[in-house]
């Protein structure tokens, strides 16, 4: 009952007219920001610090949190419509979202993304409310060895998705890790593979590679296919309505991925990305129609979308209960809270219950706003697909370039974007999956750094990875996720050859 009373107290704060206005403004701005690649929640929040400075801390955090989860909510749009994931957490959404859009089901894909995001967001707020203080222990129990194991699991899970060829999946993943190595090595300060170029000192940003090998490669592929002159099919948007059986189909994936996403989000680091990929590969494994994943399966949209929104809420756990930011975005939030005179940490629940419970309650309201706001917008936004193909392709090109240039103001990055577009085209033509490459790029740094940190702490003793129970179990699951598909193909081959 305690939680209930606290929540009512929180709603008392969140339902003040001014705070309702802030939630609305936050999620609205967030949705727009999320739709544009390159304009991530981090820069948006940093720009808002001066605005929130004079506000009540609870109002300030309500507004900024709204921008953050609003951006994750809106982030799926460009993944689905243009195959251009703007943030790492929505890469997995494009796997089935974009094929659905190509089949004229864009409206449905966007609607599923919105519903799943809503459920993921709301379920995770319940968890945040009930067990946040307990979870802070989970968050700190992950040291370098455990992170290494988690990253390995994330990678093997996505490699095992590539059903055509495990080897090609592994090759793509290795290339991704190699790209992640470029830049200044955090552990020693040494430059690696920068060829003396100052532009490569900080490595290659995820966005450049993602927009290149997904969106730009798609543009090149369509050009190669000579589809330039064809008119887009009429009514490319399709209906937004879900049938009863479709709702039934996605209910399970959404529920499971919401929980999974929340728990991965609690871990400081790559919560939303790992969460969405793990959610996606788990559902593919469980589903009877797993082989249609990647070809426009609605569950392939629902799972990652529920997971990434849940992870976003989860990332508030270490921020609010430990005062430790788990990502760049929550680091900016922490900075803003400090400026407003709130010290997040173990004592925050007692010292500033208004901030904690006010924000939790506002998340319920914010998620409802997001759903109500996004659903009517879908037909409008999806109209983009009605554009004639030459126009659409040019639009995607411009969209990607603005996204990349707006992030770094570097012409060099534009050339890289083009380069990765060609790499992506090559990968498509020769049947290499793009997902392992991009995930390996995102996780590569944490993978390497946590491995080296763990070894430095253990004095170079490799058994540290199997001595720790969490790390050991994650590594065993990782091994299974690679091994089982192998066994399965072996058995299938044997069955085929027996016939």
């Amino acid at each position: 009952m305690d939680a209930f009373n606290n929540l009512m107290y929180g709603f008392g704060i969140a339902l003040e007219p001014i705070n309702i206005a802030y939630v609305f403004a936050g999620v609205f701005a967030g949705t727009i920001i999320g739709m544009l690649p390159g304009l991530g929640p981090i820069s948006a929040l940093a720009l808002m610090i001066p605005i929130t400075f004079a506000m009540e801390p609870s109002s300030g955090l309500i507004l900024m949190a709204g921008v953050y989860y609003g951006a994750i909510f809106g982030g799926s749009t460009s993944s689905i419509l243009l195959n251009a994931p703007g943030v790492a957490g929505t890469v997995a959404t494009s796997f089935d979202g974009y094929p659905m859009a190509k089949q004229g089901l864009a409206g449905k894909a966007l609607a599923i993304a919105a519903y799943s995001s809503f459920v993921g967001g709301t379920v995770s707020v319940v968890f945040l409310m009930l067990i946040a203080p307990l979870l802070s222990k989970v968050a700190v129990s992950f040291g370098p060895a455990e992170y290494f194991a988690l990253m390995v699991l994330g990678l093997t899970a996505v490699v095992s998705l590539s059903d055509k060829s495990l080897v090609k999946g592994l090759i793509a993943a290795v290339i991704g890790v190699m790209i992640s190595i470029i830049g200044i090595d955090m552990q020693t300060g040494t430059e690696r593979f920068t060829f003396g170029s100052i532009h490569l000192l900080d490595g290659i940003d995820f966005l450049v590679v993602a927009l290149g090998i997904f969106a730009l490669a798609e543009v090149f592929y369509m050009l190669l296919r000579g589809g330039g002159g064809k008119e887009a099919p009429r009514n490319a948007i399709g209906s937004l309505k879900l049938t009863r059986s479709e709702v039934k189909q996605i209910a399970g994936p959404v529920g499971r991925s919401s929980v999974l996403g929340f728990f991965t989000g609690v871990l400081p680091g790559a919560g939303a990305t790992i969460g969405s990929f793990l959610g996606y590969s788990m559902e593919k494994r469980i589903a009877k129609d797993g082989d249609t994943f990647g070809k426009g399966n609605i569950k392939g949209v629902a799972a990652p979308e529920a997971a990434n929104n849940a992870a976003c809420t989860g990332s508030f756990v270490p921020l609010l209960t430990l005062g430790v930011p788990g990502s760049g975005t929550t680091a900016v939030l922490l900075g803003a809270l400090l400026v407003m005179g709130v010290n997040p940490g173990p004592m925050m629940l007692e010292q500033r219950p208004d901030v904690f419970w006010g924000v939790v309650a506002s998340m319920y309201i914010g998620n409802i706003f997001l759903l109500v706001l996004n659903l009517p917008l879908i037909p409008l936004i999806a109209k983009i697909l009605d554009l004639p193909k030459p126009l659409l392709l040019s639009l995607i090109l411009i969209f990607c370039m603005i996204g990349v240039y707006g992030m770094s103001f570097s012409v060099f990055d534009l050339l890289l974007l083009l380069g990765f577009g060609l790499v992506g085209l090559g990968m498509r033509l020769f049947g290499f999956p793009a997902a392992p490459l991009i995930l390996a790029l995102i996780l590569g740094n944490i993978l390497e750094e946590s491995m080296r940190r763990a070894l430095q702490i253990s004095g170079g003793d490799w058994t540290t990875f199997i001595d720790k129970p969490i790390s050991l179990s994650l590594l065993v699951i990782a091994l299974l996720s690679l091994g089982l598909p192998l066994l399965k193909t072996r058995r299938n081959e044997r069955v085929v050859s027996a016939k």
Partner: protein
Amino acid sequence: MTTLSLKHFAVLALPMAALAMTTSVNAQEWTPSRSIEFVAPANPGGGWDTLVRTMSRVIQQEELADESFAAINVPGGGGAVAWAQVARDSGNPHKLFATSPPMILVPLAGASRYDHTDFTPIARINTDYSIILVSADSEYQNLDDLFAALKDNPSLSVGGGSAPGSMDHISVAGLASAAGMKASSVNYIPFSGGGDAMTNLMGGHIEAVIGGAGEAVGQLGEGSQLRALGVSSEERLGGGLAEVPTYQEQGYDYTFDIWRGVMGAPEMPEEAVEYYETLFAEMLETDAWREASDQLGWIDAYQDSDAFATFLDEQQEQFSSVLTDLGLMRQ
């Protein structure tokens, strides 16, 4: 010699600086003719970014300048990308950037083509200090306990939020020297930020953490999972850190400043430097600044352009000797 006297005035009598500006209005005084690009050589959210944004905001809020300060993030290479960009803008009086020890350390490590002597020092603004943290249930009650254990078993890990050879590492290595250890024998584990290091300390994955005092203050106090063993300041700090003894109190003759300041494009005109010096000195006196720096745990440590330049040279010398001990000096 109005220039010189004005500078001395600002140092000796900070509160008078505002007055000094109003009385020194004369024909040759320079004022910005367009908005000032104020570069944070890093992504939003870090120390440089916070300094740039807080200063811009206070200056705007208190209407101290006619033109606005536009905060610009130029991330990359631990600052090197931004420095290369500013270095190309020689003589531009409308370009400033935030700076701190990496301005010295990154070039010393050979990771930047430009070092502090390539830019115009404008003013040192404030400072933070290093703090040594251990877990609240740890057996170490003071620095003696910790260093006794470290001497016994040098493989015990000390985490920090920056790369080897960068601030946190230099700070703890210098302290280890003062404690009679070899600087390079500290098993320093670099994490991706102070917060990351502290989480690992709470989880018992490492033995101790060296971090910024301002960053740690929120983690200390009642119900905390961490304990502070010492700060690198000369005198005890105030507020939530009043209970934490200094290194010197515990018999370790060592202090470490995490200073922050502002530099400008190379060869910035003298009058412009003067304008900014006075402006920042004035800013430090405002209530809005007071309030913001109290929240952020910053301690004012103003120096004008000349004093800052000398200070930077001294820092370079001090850091090179520690880096040489660590074997991280550029050959």
